[in-house]
């Protein structure tokens, strides 16, 4: 009596299990957690947005793609040519491309898009500022007529902010474009978007025009992608650990150890786009004396910080730019490296004699300065090490911690002396942003305003006719800024991600500067 019943139970549970597993096999979906820095991006409107998350790169394509070595490769544009004088660029477009709403992508689309880009109010228009007009040569050829040479054009065209949108729906939808509906040509279409919560994407089955840097031109291999926004790193890690999600797009340094303890989890690292540094306010005594600035900068032991604070993951920084950029190749003398003997000699020379308790004195005053940092734990840890290193040459730094969301406003007071901070950018124009004389306080935390630097800055920003010239001008500008010691470079992290290796299989190499379209095209869910 009981036997058949048990048997039928068994049969039922087996078929139930089969049903569930069949479903999960067919579903072919993966859940990603967006990095905390990108949480709360309010829209997928690339023209208007000031913050875009990783999913943006899957909804839209761009004219050109960028490889891991930062070189440029075809995407929507098959090829391009720059006029010898830099005053025009001609792009040959791929054929047979359609947007998610069925509209074709042609030379007219590019013209309409660039015009929208230049005229839509927002913060991004500067990226197309040097394009005077767009001429449609034939349906697959466009010519950008320039108001001045812009060697940085390809960089701008490879940025997610210059994702190609469908111009008709963009005009029709207004502020709803990017929120309720999104139309690009990308490998995934938007299924749903709840701001600050999650975005669900479904595969674009027609997609076959992937970026040249991806092995797979399309369609993508995973059917459905969910991007969750979890503001707490520890919560995100627990989700990964318990199988609630498959992939964390950003793992903070302090959770790396926890990830490595789990057998089914794996860490993926890519070259970083961040630089950690110590701005030095050049207007505040004693740092109005360049010798004291140099002494403070050369007191920073980058190797020790890399080993003790960051567990040897990443690289030391000895210029203001990430090493992948050609403009980081400054002269050897301009590189800022740990040199305690030089620091001590300079401080002696500047009249700061070593006093009692290891703090230098001048005219009865101790060499005491303030050192600002933000509340995140990694910043506090690093700042304490910096404080100890400064103490080693006789500079006593008092740490003040500000909430991360407030610190920019504190910088605007100009009261800072030293600070520890970081930035994320992969173009040399960041030197202009942080050291331009018209942005004192924030972003120019160093309050650096130097006539020669301003001259070099103008040449770098708008004076170059081609890429070689731009690189040369920016290298010269960067080199000069370094020799004035408005900051001390500290550290270049890697981009660290974590994923469930039982579920996700990654391509052997990801030929892109960050985990974006190319990586998602080649990514697979294990069956």
């Amino acid at each position, binding site marked *: 009596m009981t036997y058949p019943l048990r048997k039928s139970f068994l049969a039922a549970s087996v078929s139930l299990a089969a049903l569930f597993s069949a479903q999960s096999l067919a579903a072919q979906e993966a859940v990603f957690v967006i990095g905390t820095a990108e*949480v*709360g991006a*309010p*829209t997928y409107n690339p023209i*208007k947005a*000031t*913050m875009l998350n990783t999913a943006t790169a899957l909804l839209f394509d761009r004219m050109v793609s960028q490889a891991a070595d930062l070189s440029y490769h075809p995407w929507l544009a098959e090829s391009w040519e720059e006029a010898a004088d830099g005053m025009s660029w001609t792009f040959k477009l791929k054929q047979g491309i359609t947007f998610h709403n069925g509209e074709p992508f042609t030379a007219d689309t590019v013209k309409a898009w660039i015009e929208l880009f230049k005229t839509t109010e927002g*913060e*991004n228009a*500067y*990226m197309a500022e040097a394009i005077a007009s767009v001429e449609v040569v034939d349906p697959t050829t466009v010519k950008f007529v320039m108001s001045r040479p812009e060697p940085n054009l390809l960089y701008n065209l490879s940025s997610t902010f210059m994702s190609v949108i469908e111009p008709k729906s963009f005009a029709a939808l207004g*502020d709803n474009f990017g*929120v309720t509906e999104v139309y690009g040509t990308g490998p995934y279409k938007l299924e749903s978007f*709840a*701001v*600050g*919560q*999650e975005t669900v994407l479904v595969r674009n089955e027609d997609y076959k025009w992937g970026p040249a840097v991806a092995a797979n031109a399309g369609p993508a291999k995973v059917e459905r992608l969910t991007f*969750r*926004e*979890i*503001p*707490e790193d*520890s*919560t*995100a890690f*627990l*989700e990964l*650990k*318990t199988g*609630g999600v498959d992939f964390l797009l950003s793992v903070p340094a302090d959770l790396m150890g926890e990830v490595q303890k789990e057998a089914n989890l794996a860490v993926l690292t890519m070259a970083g786009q961040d630089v950690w540094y110590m701005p030095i306010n050049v207007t505040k005594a004693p740092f109005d004396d360049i010798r004291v600035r140099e002494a403070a900068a050369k007191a920073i032991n980058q190797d020790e910080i890399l080993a003790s604070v960051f567990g040897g993951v990443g690289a030391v920084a000895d210029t203001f730019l990430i090493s992948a950029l050609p403009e980081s190749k400054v002269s050897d003398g301009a590189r800022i490296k740990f040199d305690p003997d030089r620091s001590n000699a300079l401080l002696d020379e500047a009249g700061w004699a070593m006093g009692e308790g290891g703090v230098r004195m001048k005219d009865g005053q101790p060499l005491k300065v303030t050192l600002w940092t933000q509340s995140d734990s990694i910043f506090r840890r690093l700042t304490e090490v910096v404080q100890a290193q400064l103490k080693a040459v006789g500079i006593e730094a008092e740490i003040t911690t500000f909430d991360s*969301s*407030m610190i*920019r*406003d*504190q910088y605007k007071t100009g009261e800072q002396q030293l600070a520890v901070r970081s930035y994320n*950018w992969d173009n040399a*124009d*960041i030197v*202009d*942003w942080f050291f331009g004389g*018209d*942005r004192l306080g*924030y*972003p120019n935390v160093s309050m650096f305003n130097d006539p020669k630097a301003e001259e070099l800055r103008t040449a770098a920003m708008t004076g170059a006719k081609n890429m070689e010239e731009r690189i040369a001008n920016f290298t010269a500008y960067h080199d000069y800024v370094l020799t004035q010691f408005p900051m001390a470079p500290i550290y270049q992290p890697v981009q660290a991600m974590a994923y469930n290796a039982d579920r996700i299989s990654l391509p052997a190499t990801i030929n892109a500067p960050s985990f974006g379209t190319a990586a998602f095209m080649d990514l697979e869910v294990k069956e």
Partner: protein
Amino acid sequence: MLPWLIKRLLMLVPVFLAVSVVIFSILHFIPGDPIDNLLKIGSSPEARAEMEVRYGLDKPLAVQYSIWLGNVVQGDLGTAIVARRPVADLIAQALPHSLRLGGLALLFSTVVGVLLGVVAALNRDRWPDRAIMGGVLVGSTMPSFWLGLILILVFSVSLGWFPVSGARGWQSLVLPVLTIGLGGTALVARITRVSMIEAAGRDFVTLLHAKGLSPLRIQLGHVLRHALIPVVTILALRIGWILGGAVTVEVVFARPGLGTLLIKSLSQHDYPVVQACLLMLAMAVMLGTLLGDIMQALMDPRVRAALS
């Protein structure tokens, strides 16, 4: 009753005005403004000035306040500066999540709290009373974010019963509801117990005993009914509290809602959104208090008589 109610409602107006002034000014005294979050690397100082004009941030604070208040009174919460959407849309998206979470937590703390309170009162000074009151003390002193993390570690990470975070399905509601609800349970249990013990000493109870009613019937049918008046008042007061308490819990569990919206907008200095969220929370407290008063009036014949 009606004149009393009207008077009570009119009294909310000055309270509302005072709250609105505080909300508006506190926010603007925090250093910084939302424009920083709109500026991108590469934008010029002129772009910044232009934006200040566009969002009215260049006007004196008093003028900004009167414009804002005028719009709010007309039901226009404005447009989010950073999120670039009508604030009403953002609130409409977030509020149902918070109401669901808060409502369930309130329900949980009421049912479980009253039950525990009754059991404790009936077993006064015996071990069930001591156990319940001890548990309640622990429960009421635990900060909700910490309790939330402990619940995640036990029920999600170790046992794997519920998801760690998110808002998918009923399973994802269990731990957040428990996190918010447990604190309320402690409060309700304590008040139920105290007012039951107090009511049990009243003359009418002696009379009921004299009439020969069974002790259990007296306790549940008469004493409890009497004892529930302060409990209901406290519960109404907690409506606002619970929405406020949801702020941290929503962040811990990465759930959508008013709290997540508030925290995000606060870090971006998105004034219109923060103002609207705070106003919602303040209104919840104000209306909860009003509701408490009304309920008390309806349930207590003496108060009802005094009003009419």
